[in-house]
């Protein structure tokens, strides 16, 4: 975690890179408009501690946290027969409670998102699951700026590209 090597990151352009692990690449950064982390677990106390950790990590890394909200828990219940054979009137009931915490982060670059997600996912406690919804923003690709037959040189039988 501490020595993780990540390509495509920038450091101060004024001073030379003092960190030998940081490498800068030429490709443009991907931009994430919003990163939505949904953390699911069975124990509310564990999720609360994890939320504190994730929010503090985001603040330290300079990521703006839009909001942290807790969707209501879902309880899945099963009713099974208590005995192996007959005794239909005696059942046993189990339930599985899933608590959720949703963290919404705004305006991350590709490298920052990779760093934050790796840090936060390596420290996911046992028995807790996470879903990350990333919203990437992009420019319109060049081939959709104008229809292709406008850009082709004027030919008599213009091949219409589909």
């Amino acid at each position, binding site marked *: 975690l501490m020595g993780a090597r990540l390509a495509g990151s920038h450091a101060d352009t004024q001073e030379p890179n003092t960190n030998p692990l940081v490498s800068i690449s030429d490709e443009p950064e991907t931009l994430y408009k919003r990163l939505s982390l949904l953390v699911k677990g069975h124990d509310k106390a564990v999720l609360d501690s994890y939320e504190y950790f994730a929010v503090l990590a985001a603040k330290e890394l300079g990521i703006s946290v839009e909001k942290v909200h807790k969707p209501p828990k879902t309880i899945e219940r099963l009713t099974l027969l208590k005995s192996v054979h007959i005794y239909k009137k005696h059942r046993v009931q189990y339930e599985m409670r899933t608590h959720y915490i949703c963290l919404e982060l705004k305006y991350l670059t590709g490298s920052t998102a990779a760093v934050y997600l790796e840090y936060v996912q390596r420290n996911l406690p046992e028995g807790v699951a996470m879903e990350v919804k990333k919203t990437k923003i992009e420019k319109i690709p060049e081939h*959709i700026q104008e229809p292709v037959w406008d850009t082709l040189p004027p030919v008599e039988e213009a091949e219409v590209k589909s």
Partner: protein
Amino acid sequence: HVPPRAERMTVDQDWTSVYPTAAAFKPASVPLPIRMGYPVKRGVPPPKEGNLELIKIPNFLHLTPPAIKKHCAALKDFCTEWPNALDSDEKCEQHFPIEIETVDYVSSGTSIRNPQARVVTLRVKLSNLNLDEHAKKKLIKLVGERYCKDTDMLTITTDRCPLRRQNYDYGIHLLTVLYHESWKTEMWESEKTEEDMEEYIWENSCSQKNALDTLLRIKASENVSNVTKEELLASEVVKNYRNSVIALKNEGETENNVSQYKESVKKLLNIQAL
């Protein structure tokens, strides 16, 4: 027997070296008097020595605030800054109109793969694409349910390829195909009837014909000199009537629209008595 390490710990020690990584709870290494568990009758929860409950639950002793700050200070070199020029949603929309949503799933189990991770959703506002009137209408017809009129958003969700990159490429390919197809005009498009129109156009409709007919007959019965159709069309009353009919058909029947229609009909047929 040697006393536990916890009794020899100082208050200002470096906790990050005691618990550098995630580890089970060791009662001899944690100098806190924690009790956990269900209390016996008229008693207190059991102490930390030999307490299975404390070992079972995941602990965050390796992620205390100073430890988090140390980690983040080391990780800060690898982060890049968000460009300052894009500080609001509208600017993002203006410079980067396409939004691509992907979902990653992290869970513990026998397999780390999740088949839902290959779904890719593409969202574009049609006002940002280079389309003219006919192309926009044709695109909306082609796309059907995937277009939302209120927000002017086209949403394409692709799921048919096994990998996420393939689904993304397929989504872009669909967008390209839709764009080019909507710019083409097929021969059979000239047979578009009134039922196919998206919005009501008053010119060349039965409403216009009826109104002009009625007005011509009124003028003929009053023996006024022959007024031409163009003059009738350009007159105020007919324009009012046209606007109210268009509003009724396009926006539905609201109080305002119906009362406007009533006023315009009264003016058209000159019956102010009602």
